[in-house]
């Protein structure tokens, strides 16, 4: 077997050193009843060619986003990732190293995390950021529980514009921890209803911008209302490229900003692995979940980096930890940081402007389709539209014309009664031809 270096002679020699008659003797503590003599009913080992053939066969039964016109967003976005990003993250020293617990021989990973944290703080307009979370949705749940620790209150108000998967994740995890989760009704302009839901028991308000319907909102007023009630404002973003064009959460008064970072540096991957971004005001740092990288010096006074403030974490605090989280999303964070360091301020701004311009083009094209109503007044790169009848049926019909027309909102939240709402995103990868193809299929199918 190509991944196992020991030869039969090696094994015999080693058993002799150990003083065991055979390998079975090393498993003697396993109860007799649980020792399987036979192989389990699964195929036997296979060569690279054989395995590659099977996997390529499975891959061929999927329709990649890049295979034609494609408009899905709703929390995951198709962007172009520079070739150098994927090349660097496959460097052995990044790919095959462990969490940097031995800082003397992990300065590469640690310095990248320090750069990552600095980038996230700058994008979100907040002072401190952690070394990443599993993804945006779990970062959202962790932010809500952090608000509970900070305010010592139990209630969280989730805007109806929050991605339904984020709301469900937060409900599952934060509720298990004992919090009361108030989930407001899904609505395109859901932010309007948030302020009225805040009261003196509220630990935090969670608002997404651009929201799941694509609506970009200034949440400053919500921040004021939350702060007046002694609550924290958590701002969620699922499209990190929007930071390049829109006001940052920090500027609008957020206490905690969380985001899905997939858009920068990471492929769609059918939903994961992704990278959760997490930033907060400096005074809250000791209540933050997850790993933090900090600057220090070595024994000769040279600058270096270590994981720090780990007294918050499970491996030190055990049942008193701020979170049970152990890992972060290191390699995805690395991809994020490399891509963003290639973009820089100017590149990110330009990328964001292109995304917005494509969405404007999409918006203009959709306005020419009779029966389509555009629901999103101010957007970054994503629109919600109302179609006659079922959005799922519209998507299915468009698929017959080779167009993946977007995400029916009902797939995310079947109970919302919004079967006629379709979410469409455009990015720098969307061409005018793609938009024309979408328009053609909608005209053809909706006209019938």
């Amino acid at each position: 077997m190509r991944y196992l270096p020991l030869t039969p002679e090696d094994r015999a020699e080693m058993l002799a050193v150990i003083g065991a008659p055979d390998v079975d003797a090393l498993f003697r503590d396993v109860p007799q009843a649980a020792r399987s003599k036979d192989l389990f009913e699964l195929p036997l080992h296979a060569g690279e060619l054989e395995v590659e053939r099977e996997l390529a066969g499975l891959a061929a039964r999927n329709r990649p986003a890049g295979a034609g016109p494609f408009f899905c967003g709703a929390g995951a976005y198709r962007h172009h990732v520079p070739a150098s990003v994927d090349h660097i993250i496959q460097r052995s020293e990044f790919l095959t190293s462990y969490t940097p617990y031995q800082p003397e021989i992990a300065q590469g990973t640690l310095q990248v995390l320090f750069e990552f944290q600095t980038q996230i703080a700058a994008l979100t307009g907040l002072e401190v950021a952690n070394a990443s979370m599993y993804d945006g949705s779990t970062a959202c749940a962790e932010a809500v529980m952090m608000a509970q620790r900070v305010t010592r209150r139990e209630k969280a108000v989730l805007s109806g514009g929050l991605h339904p998967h984020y709301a469900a994740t937060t409900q599952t995890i934060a509720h298990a921890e004992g919090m009361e989760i108030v989930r407001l009704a899904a609505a395109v302009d859901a932010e309007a209803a948030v302020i009225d839901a805040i009261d003196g028991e509220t630990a935090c308000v969670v608002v997404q911008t651009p929201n799941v319907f694509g609506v970009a909102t200034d949440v400053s007023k919500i921040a004021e209302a939350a702060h007046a009630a002694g609550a924290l404002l958590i701002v969620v973003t699922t499209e990190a490229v929007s930071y390049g064009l829109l006001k940052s959460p920090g500027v609008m008064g957020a206490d905690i900003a969380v985001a899905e970072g997939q858009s920068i540096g990471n492929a769609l991957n059918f939903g994961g692995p992704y990278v959760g971004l997490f930033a907060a005001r400096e005074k809250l740092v000791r209540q933050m979940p997850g790993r933090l990288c900090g600057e220090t010096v070595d024994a000769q006074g040279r600058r270096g980096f270590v994981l720090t403030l780990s007294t918050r974490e499970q491996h030190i605090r055990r049942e008193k930890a701020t979170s049970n989280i152990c890992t972060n999303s290191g390699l995805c964070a690395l991809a994020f940081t490399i891509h963003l360091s290639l973009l820089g301020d100017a590149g990110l701004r330009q990328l964001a402007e292109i995304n917005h311009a494509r969405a404007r083009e999409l918006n203009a094209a959709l306005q020419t389709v009779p029966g389509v109503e555009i629901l999103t007044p101010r957007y970054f790169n994503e629109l919600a539209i109302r179609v006659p009848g079922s959005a799922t049926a519209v998507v299915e019909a468009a698929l017959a014309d080779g167009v993946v027309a977007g995400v029916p909102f009902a797939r995310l939240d079947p109970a919302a009664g919004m079967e006629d709402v379709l979410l469409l995103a455009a990015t720098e990868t969307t061409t005018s031809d793609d938009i024309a193809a979408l328009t053609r299929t909608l005209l053809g199918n909706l006209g019938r």
Partner: protein
Amino acid sequence: MSMNSVGRPTRPEAAAHKGSVSLTGGRGLLQDEPLLFELDGWRKTGVDLPAVDFDASDLGDLVRAEPTGLPGLSEPEAVRHYVRLSQKNHAIDLALYPLGSCTMKHNPRLNEKMARLAGFADLHPLQPATTTQGALELMDRLAHWLKTLTGMPAVALSPKAGAHGELCGLLAIKAAHEAAGHGDRRRVLVPSSAHGTNPATAAFVGYSVQEIAQTADGRVDLADLGAKLGSDVAAIMVTNPNTCGLFERDIIEIARLTHEAGAYFYCDGANFNAIVGRVRPGDLGVDAMHINLHKTFSTPHGGGGPGAGPVVLSAALAPFAPAPWVTHGQGGLTLTEEAVGEAAQAFGRLCAFHGQMGMYVRAYTYMRSHGADGLRQVAEDAVLNANYIKARLSEVMTPAFPDGPCMHEALFDDAWLEGTGVTTLDFAKAMIDEGFHPMTMYFPLVVHGAMLIEPTETESKRELDRFCAALLALAQAAKAGEAERFKAAPVLAPLRRLDETLAARKPRLRWRPDDTAVAPAPWAAE
């Protein structure tokens, strides 16, 4: 023709110059590398984008007024920056990486290649199921392998890491108790040797945590377990093989006692790699167990994630598994994404979308490569390698549990260092100078000055011998009174020991413009 393979002869006077100190402060090929923010990249970008006719009038005052203040680099500068940084890392591709409980094994590159096929990597989680049949099929096959290898009837794939899997298992247990009208069970029993995530997760879900004592031979104390089990216990969380690297001999009895008390048996499957292909946790009475795909099934650790922690579940817990899961329908495979209808007992959702698909592809590729026979050999070689290291190092070092074999990792205490002035930490740091990553130190907590060594099955005998020789040489040096060598170590790493106290006392968690005099950055004022 090869390039100058001999090299230019060194001039004697140059070689003698100032000993080993260079003129510029450089250290040969090991480049010092400033932070990204110190590379003067304020007006650069390494990405060529088309010009657009930009109009943000529709966004009004939503447009960001302040610049992000982020530097950019051209591609050659960026590549050099990150490659230089990479060279300051140790990695499994460089040498045996003996971190106990972490399972640093070789990461086959075929797995990386398969995960990057456009049919997997360029697939959106919410595109119509009819366009993702191959991806759903892969998830279904992965689930089949995990269920067969563990002898369990169900699996929840979506947890994104081991600790996330623990959360999944405990939430399923909690939901099952509540459904049966036993929501008043409030205690979870955890052995003192457990990973920190076990008590952290139990507390997180609202349970009180009680420790189970350990016997002198490193196993769960059955008498203590029996005494602590009761009608208010929701679950026990036991790692098997445990964190001392030992198989819990009484595991079937532990499960029986637990079930008799009406509690569930959560098994921490972090060490499943020691028994994969040989022992099925389902045959041991386990109700829920997470599997770290990045350990047993060799998805890369990536400097700290991403991981993946699918959870196998017993028939009693299966109805409570979180959404989503793959369902066989008439028109092909679909995803059940909501806790309604037949799925109404699902305890909820643990993350957006369907989990770590990129890791599923890698893990499935690994399983298919090894097959049933190869996976069994994986466990055997992992255990053989650990016992070989234990036998060889026991010459000088003191094994924490000398009697009987260990499983996939060998645990030593620091008794043998007594009187040398060398601590476990010093010894571990000295390993760096010999070219190896330190072993896991001071864990498990139940062993004084613990040194937990896990070689994994992907080490050759030659590399094992090289490792043992290095450790034995260090041990001799410690015994010979060379404490100074250990106190100073490492001296051959990119940096010497770092001041962790300073880092925690005055946290500097990001670069700020006034930190460096290199470049006046147009950084947003705070």
